[in-house]
């Protein structure tokens, strides 16, 4: 069954790279939705059903922690795995994300293999 994914990052470059990595990972990929921040993601998730979310943490308007918080409090999304892919490496932020229910954490810069290994344990 095809997996619909949402990539949330304020950098179009990172969205493009993650999209490419997902294709290379040979996951049965369905639609790939993109959002430029947490607010944009919430808006697009009103009409898009996804089985995986890859999200940055540091973004304008709404950061990845707030997005995670809101999605985990929403019955429709609380079971959707959310992997944080971010430059943010502070222990406090990483722990906060994991405590809020993030399925994993990958630090930028990353290799395609690191993303694929993380996803293999989740999907």
């Amino acid at each position: 069954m095809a997996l619909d994914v949402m990539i949330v990052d304020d950098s179009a470059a990172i969205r493009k790279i993650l999209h490419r990595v997902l294709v290379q990972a040979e996951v049965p990929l369905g639609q790939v939705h993109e959002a430029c921040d947490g607010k944009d993601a919430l808006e697009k998730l009103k009409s898009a059903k996804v089985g995986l979310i890859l999200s940055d943490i540091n973004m304008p308007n709404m950061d990845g922690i707030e997005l995670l918080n809101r999605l985990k409090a929403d019955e429709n999304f609380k079971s959707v795995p959310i992997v944080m892919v971010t430059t943010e490496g502070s222990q406090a932020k990483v722990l906060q994300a994991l405590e809020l229910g993030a399925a994993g954490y990958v630090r930028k810069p990353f290799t395609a293999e690191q993303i694929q290994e993380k996803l293999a344990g989740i999907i």
Partner: protein
Amino acid sequence: MSGTVSPEDIVAAVTQATEDVFSTMLNLPLEKLEPQTATSEPPGSDGVVALVGIGGSWTGSGRIGCNKQTACKLAGALLMSSYPEVDEEVLDAMAEVANMIIGNVKTNFESQLGPLGLSVPTVVFGRNYHTRSAGVQNWMVIPFRTGEDHIEIRFCLMPSQTSQSRIERLRPQIAA
């Protein structure tokens, strides 16, 4: 949490972060050239510069600069595309390269200095432009060569005025 940051610490952290980004995301060779300190802003520049600010108990700024041809090559390596001219994707790629390098330098220093914040990157592209960071007196300038191309990373970090004035206010109590 308090600490100090030496020029050597900055050079080591910037070098490590830059090598990580070049080896994992860009797959480009990288050679560190001789670092130096600078007490003034760079003269009028041409090309692309990406700036990221650091905030918290310490404040600072990191900037990555190169000519437009090098920016196109870095973007091409990051996005596996070809860019004959600087466009939106090249500027976005330069912003992300700066974000990753300066973000990892910030993370490196957090163990010594406590939590620090990172600004959204700003990218400037043009000819004969001048940039200025208010209050910055000393930059560490770390040049690199990648193939035939050069990039320059400038970084500064200093105690924020707020935390500095708090220390001054508490100094009599500490002395007592």
